[in-house]
Every structure is written in C-alpha cells, then in structure tokens.
C-alpha cells in the first residue's frame, strides 16, 4: 500500500498537469471533449491523492521508520491517534493534507457544477488543477513525505509533545479546510475575469464556498486559540504571532467579502471590490502558508525553515501578477450598475464595515511585516509584539464592533431621520445602561468600558431585530413565540444566521475585554504550604500544595504539582500542573520538557496554573508556580461556537419556495420603512 501511495503521488501530479492543460485549452477552444477530459482529470487527481494519503497513513501507523517523515514525527510508543495526526505534524505531510482537501473540494465543484456554470467551468477546473499542480510539485520535488532514509533507525524522534494534544487533531484540518476553500471562489473569480462574465452568476457560485471557508477558518482559529491556551502555558490564547496573524488575515477579508457580496447582489455595486476581496483572500491564505514555511519571520507555530517557503513565495508572486493583469484588463467590465446614494444607508455602512475589516487586515499585515521593513530601512532588528498590535487594533476593533450594531439598523439606499431615531433609540439606551451599571460597579478601564457599552448596544440591536421579526410572525400567523422564532430563522437564514454570528462577535469582545482584569501571582510552595489571593471578582482563594510527585505515564516521565483549592473558605477541588519529558520506546528523551497547564474552567473566570520549575532535593521539593485568574476566557470558546452555529445556519441549504419568501420579507422591510416615512 505504501508503494502504491508513493506512485500515486506522481500519477496525481501528472493528472493535475493534464487537468490544467485541458481545462484552459477546453475553455479557449470551446472543445467539449477537452472540458470533459479536465473533469475526469480532476476526479482522477482526487483518487490518486487519496491513495497517496492512505499510503502515508499506512507508513505512519505501521511505524515504517525507513521513511524520513515517519522517523522524524513518530516513535514506536506514540499513541495511535497521534500517529494518525502526525500526518499533518510535519511539513510534507501537511502539504499532502492540503492537496487532499483541495482535490476533494475540486471534485465536489466539478460534480456540483456538471449542469451549470458551464461557460465558467473550464477555467474554474483549469485554475483548481493548476493550484493542485503547484502543491503536488512542491510535495514531489520540494518536500516529499515518501523520502527514504537509506537505513532504518530503531525508533523515531517522536511527535513534538505540544502536538500531542486533542486540539491538534482538529485545529490544523479545520484551518486547512478554511484556507483551501478560498481556492474555489478564487477559481471562479479567475474564470469570470477570463470570460468577462462578471455578473451575479459567479457570485452565486462562490457565496457558499466563501461561507464554508469562513466557517472552517472560524472553527480552526478558535481551536488554535484554545490549543495555545491549554498547551503553551503562557496564560493567554492570542499573542499576535505571525502565524496566528496569517490565519486571521483571510478571515478578515473573507468576512468583508461576505458583507460586500450583499451590496452587489442587491444593488449591483462594489464589483471591482468584490473581485479584489476574493482574490486577496486566496492570496492571503497562500501568504499565511508562505510565512509558516519560509522562516522569513520567526513564529511560534512555524515549520522548520525549508526551500518550500520559496516555492510559495514564487507562487504568490505569480498569482498576484496574473490576477492583477486580469483585473487590470477587465476594469470596464467591472463597472457598477448602480451607485451609492447616501452616506446614511445600509450599503454605505457595509462600505465602512469593509473599510474597517480590510483596514484591520492591513494593520495586522503591516505589523507582521514591519520588522522586515524596519530592518531594511534602519539596518537594526526590532520586535513587534502584542503591545504594538493592541495599540493599533484595539481602537479599530471597537469601531468594528460599533458598526456591527449600526449596520443592521440602517435601511438600504437612504435612511431617514425618523428611521434612524426609531431604530437607534433602544440600542443606544441599552448600551448606555450597560456602561452606566459597570461604571457604577467600579469598572474604570476605559477600553473595557467602551467595549462593554458597545456590546450592550449591539446586543440590543440584535434583540430588537429578533423581537420585531418574531412580533411580525406572531401577528401574521398567530404562532407562539418559540415557533415564531424558529420559523423566523428558518425562513430567512442569511439574515438571522448573520445576526447570530454577530452575537458570537459580541461574546468574543466581551471575553477579550475581560482580560483587562486578569490577575497573576508567582509563588513558591513546599508541600503543605499555602498561598492566598483575591480574584478580580473579590473572592478569596487559598491554594495549598500537596507536594511534587514524579511518575511515568504512557510515553513520558511526569513531574507534577498538586494544589488543593479553597474558594471563600469552601473546598473547590484540586488543580494540577505537569512538566512532561517525553521518551521514545527505549526510554530516551525525545524533546525538551513541555508544560501541561492546570485549569479550572468557570463561566466567570478560569483559574490557570503553571508549574514553572522545581527546586530542592527529592522529598523536599519547592514548586515554582504561576497562578492566573483569567476572567471570561471561556466565553472566547462559546463566542467561536456561536459564530460557527450562525455560519452554519447561513450556509444551510434553503428550499426554493422558502428562498422566495425570505427575499420577499427582506425586500419589503426597507420599502416599508420608506412608506412609513
């Protein structure tokens, strides 16, 4: 099976090359036989990539250490689940996962469009096959997981301990599914540009793929934050690391596109902008991969520096040049069919929302690259860490939060004073009440106060929208509140699913602002010693060391400290943090020791404990621990979950009959506003 897999990789490469050639040739010559051949080539590529992946999984699960990849990322005593996930634990395996997902997506696109978008499809297939070709060539010639060592070591190096975590089983595949899904809208954009069919047709084809990408990126980024929180041990979940930033960039531009696409659908505007956003989102996904793999910028999550980064750099430049040429030569075809009428309109608010999202993306990209730029200008190295990103992005993020609330309240085309007054009164009162209450309770952090006030405003906006919708349904159909709410969402998934996403955004901001009240304590404790601390909510905590213990567990030697916890004098369980020294099957250490965080999750705050070191003699050890009270962190995960649920509702297929009714309701509302005015 391994040999079949190895050979399949090369056959897949040939298939992708063929698909690229006949895809574009079929489009330019209008020959149906070539187009049909491209379809078959894409299906075949998927099949052979699946075989190549099965081959690698077989090598990993059977610990065939004659392969450099298997020897580098697994050991005989590695639990099977991590042998399986080691597939994406290293450079070449993760590239194979990338092309596996890409070829799956390509197959789905070909199948789903077998009877539609026929003018676009040859170029869509050609573009997708070209991207597959690039990845397969990079794997085959730059970083081949089937590279043999020439000898068989007795055991492998093992998987990095920090990747031996359930989150790492889910985080990279989700992130990749998000990154790679941007290829499909990109392929449709290229096809639309080549054919000059830049109407709504290509947009309709890419909307669901853009949502899919956004959905998986949201899940992938949230899981990545969670992994960093529980595994890295520094007490936070987002450090503005270049690779974290790189995953966030396509999410931002993708989010901008999902808003601006509505403006083009309803008003025929922002056509150049939408093409630019689709192309940028794809290019930023490749840029993220380039950063992770080139070693140009130091990062927590980077793969080892290798020539693969330059392949990505080259591909990025080629893709930018080609798409810039296509957009530049099709500007006339991208003219808007309508124009903006008022600064106070839904479309204008989307424009400002886009400006902010892209502005934040630019600020993050700028900060990520600024060390290189500064060094080029000044000749000295600098560090651009969290203080820089927070200073620049927190104000922009708060503005974005405000727009999240403002946008849905403004009518399409032109909002009147009466409309604004009626729509904004409740939410503004809601925001002011939240801010006043928190001020009264003693909150003084200005950013947190602004964030919570805006959160109150946005949440009231969303509640108001749901209240109106449910009220309308109850009056029209006599439904009870719950079925009215359910049907309201079910009948207009885009709109109300979008509001649910906004609820997730609010929850995230509430959680982010909570970190302003984080409290940290460093303590050294011998067995039996206690430490007392007051948390941000005023509760008294006592931590009593039960001592340091050492033991063997699975594929590691563990040193652990156990603390008994009391909250306000009442027992609150135990908390344990570990240092793990992973060993191979012969007992030899494989990596430096890693940290296992002690965590007590709570809705109001997490108690987070890290064993930073152990001193003293056996039996008389002193544990050096750091204890953090992290307010509201759990709401980051809930916020991500709510956003994902909202995204799922938006994506969920809607029956044609219901679509019509949803459009009718959505359309009537602003018209109705005008009528009243």
């Amino acid at each position, binding site marked *: 099976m391994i040999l079949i897999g190895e050979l399949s990789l090369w056959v897949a490469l040939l298939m992708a090359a063929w698909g690229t050639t006949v895809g574009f040739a079929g489009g330019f010559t209008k020959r149906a036989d070539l187009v049909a051949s491209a379809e078959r080539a894409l299906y075949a590529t998927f099949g052979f990539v699946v075989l190549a992946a099965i081959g690698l999984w077989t090598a990993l699960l059977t610990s065939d250490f004659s392969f450099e990849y298997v020897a580098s990322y697994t050991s005989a005593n590695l639990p099977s689940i991590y042998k399986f996930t080691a597939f994406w634990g290293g450079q070449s395996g993760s590239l194979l996962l990338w092309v596996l997902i890409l070829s799956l997506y390509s197959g789905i696109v070909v199948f789903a469009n077998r009877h539609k978008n026929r003018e676009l499809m040859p170029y869509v297939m050609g573009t997708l096959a070209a991207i597959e070709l690039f990845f397969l060539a990079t794997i085959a010639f730059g970083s081949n997981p089937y590279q043999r060592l020439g000898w068989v070591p007795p055991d492998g190096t093992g998987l990095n301990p920090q990747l031996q975590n359930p989150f790492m089983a889910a985080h990279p595949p989700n992130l990749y599914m998000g990154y790679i899904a941007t290829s499909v809208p990109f392929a449709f954009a290229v096809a639309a540009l080549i054919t000059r069919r830049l109407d709504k047709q290509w947009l309709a084809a890419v909307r669901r793929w853009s949502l899919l990408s956004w959905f998986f990126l949201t899940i992938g980024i949230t899981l990545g934050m969670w992994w960093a929180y529980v595994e890295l041990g520094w007490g936070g979940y987002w450090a503005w690391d270049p690779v974290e930033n790189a995953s966030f960039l396509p999410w931002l531009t993708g989010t901008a596109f999902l808003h601006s696409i509505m403006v083009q659908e*309803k008003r025929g505007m922002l056509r150049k902008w939408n093409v630019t956003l689709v192309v940028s989102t794809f290019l930023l996904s490749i840029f993220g991969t380039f950063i992770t793999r080139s070693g140009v910028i130091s990062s927590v999550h980077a793969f080892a520096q290798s020539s693969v980064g330059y392949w990505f*750099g080259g591909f990025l430049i080629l893709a930018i040049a080609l798409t810039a040429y296509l957009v530049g030569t099709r500007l006339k075809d991208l003219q808007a069919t309508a124009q903006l009428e008022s600064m106070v309109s839904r479309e204008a608010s989307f424009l400002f929302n886009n400006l902010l999202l892209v502005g934040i993306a630019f*600020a993050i990209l700028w900060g990520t690259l600024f060390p290189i730029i500064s060094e080029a200008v000044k000749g000295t190295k600098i*560090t651009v860490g969290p203080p820089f990103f927070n200073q620049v992005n927190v104000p922009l993020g708060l503005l974005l939060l405000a727009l999240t609330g403002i946008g849905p309240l403004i009518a399409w085309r032109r909002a009147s004073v009466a409309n604004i007054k009626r729509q904004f009164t409740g939410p503004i009162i809601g925001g002011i009440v939240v801010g006043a209450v928190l001020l009264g309770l003693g909150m003084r952090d200005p950013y947190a106060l602004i964030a919570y006030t805006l959160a109150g405003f946005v949440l009231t906006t969303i509640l108001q929208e749901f209240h109106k919708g449910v009220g309308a349904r109850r009056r029209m159909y006599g439904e009870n509140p719950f079925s009215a709410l359910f049907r309201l969402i079910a009948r207009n998934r885009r709109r109300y699913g979008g509001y649910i996403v906004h609820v997730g955004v609010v929850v995230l901001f509430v959680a982010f602002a909570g970190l302003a009240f984080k409290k940290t304590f460093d303590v050294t404790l011998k067995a039996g010693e206690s430490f007392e601390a007051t948390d941000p909510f005023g509760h008294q905590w006592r931590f009593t060391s039960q001592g340091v213990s050492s033991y063997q567990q699975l594929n590691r030697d563990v040193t652990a400290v156990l603390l008994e916890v009391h909250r306000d004098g009442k027992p609150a369980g135990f908390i344990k943090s570990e240092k793990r020294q992973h060993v191979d099957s012969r007992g030899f250490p494989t990596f*430096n020791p890693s940290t296992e965080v002690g965590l007590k999750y709570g809705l109001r705050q997490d108690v987070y404990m890290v064993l930073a070191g152990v001193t003293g003699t056996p039996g008389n050890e002193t544990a050096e621990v750091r204890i953090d009270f992290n307010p509201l962190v759990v709401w980051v995960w809930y916020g991500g979950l709510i956003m994902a649920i909202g995204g799922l509702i938006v994506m969920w297929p809607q029956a044609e009959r219901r679509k019509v009714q949803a459009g009718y309701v959505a359309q009537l509302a602003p018209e109705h506003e005008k009528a009243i005015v």
Partner: protein
Amino acid sequence: MPVTHSPTHGPQLTAQSSQPDEFCLMTDSTISRRQFLGAVATGLAAAAIPSALIAQGVQQGSGQQISAATNMAMDDGRYRPVRLPSKGSGPSMAAKQRDELERHIHCQCGCTLDVYTCRTTDFTCSVSPAMHHDVMALVDGGYSAQEIINAFVHVYGEKVLMAPPKRGFDLTGYLTPFAALGGGVALVVALLRKWRPATADGAPVAELPVDATPDELARLDAAMRSDDS
C-alpha cells in the same frame, strides 16, 4: 569574549557574550533580504520548471533546542549581562511594578514572549531568569523603569523592546495603519460625493423576484406597521 560598550553619556554598561554574534540563533533562522530575494527568484523558477534537482526541504528535528513554551528554537548563549553601579538609593519600585516592566522587555532566548511571561512559563529557558536577575539588580540599584529599559536597549538593541519605540522611522509603524484607514475613509467620502448627483432622483431599488399575492403583501405590511408603531 567580553565586549565593552562605551555610552556617550550616563553610567558605563558592560556586556558579555558567551558566544560570538554569528552563532546567535536568530542569525541562523532569519534570512537576509538578499538571500530571501534570491531564493524567491529560485522559487519562481522552480514553480515554472519543476525539477527533480530542487533540494529537499530541511526536516524538523535537527537537534536544535526547542522552547517548551513557544515551540521555538532557543539559544541560551544570547544572554548578555546588563549591569550598572548601584545608586545606593534603595529599590526603585515594588515587585508588581517590576513584573510589569518585565512585560515590556523581550526575552532573548529566541521565543516570542516577554521576560516575565517566559520566566514564569518555560523552565527550560535560562535566558529569561538571567534577564530577570538583571532587572532585579537594576531595580535594587535605584534605577527607574525608563533607565532600565534604556540600559537593556543599549546592550541588546531595540529588539529587546516588545514594541518598537514611537520615534523616527518606527513611528510610521504606528501611524501607517491609521493613515491608510483615513485615506480609505476620504476615498469613500469622495466617491459618495461624486456618485450622489447621478442618482439623486431616488430611483426605486432593484427588486428581487417576489412571489406573493397582493393579499399576503398587505398582511405583511399591516403586521410590520403595527410592529413599528
């Protein structure tokens, strides 16, 4: 080999490096612009003409020491003492303020963390505890936060700061995003002004196909009217 820095003013700073600069990890893992541009050109060629001669990627696990906290390669030899003679005025700040100060100083082990976070997280790092001891000695010596920051910058350069200083070229780092955003807002406003006269007649909104009877429309309209009132 000891290296002595002679500042033009202020107390004498002494820095000692256990390894020459060329052995610093950052030099190994960070690529010069020339190397980078050359390699991108190679990548372009590689993308255009795939060749079996392209070198294999360097696999991870080459024996480099990896930070437990950040999964990044560490180099303990990058520590350099930052020492100043005591002013004799006693500690300049409390432990909490000192911890806060350490959050502005970048650990030099090769990780991305500040000194405080690294030393309280990663017990495999020997650089952050050493830098912490220097901070403690300077605090005990009566130096203010700014003086301590200056001393670290003098020895390590500006890379020891967690964020670039807001002066000179680095100020553009802070201003550019806002300038770009301001430019974007100005562009949108300019476009609006240009567009508005063209559609001031208030032409109706492009309608979506609506499949509803007049009776249904009337019912919905009535419901929404009462909802808004």
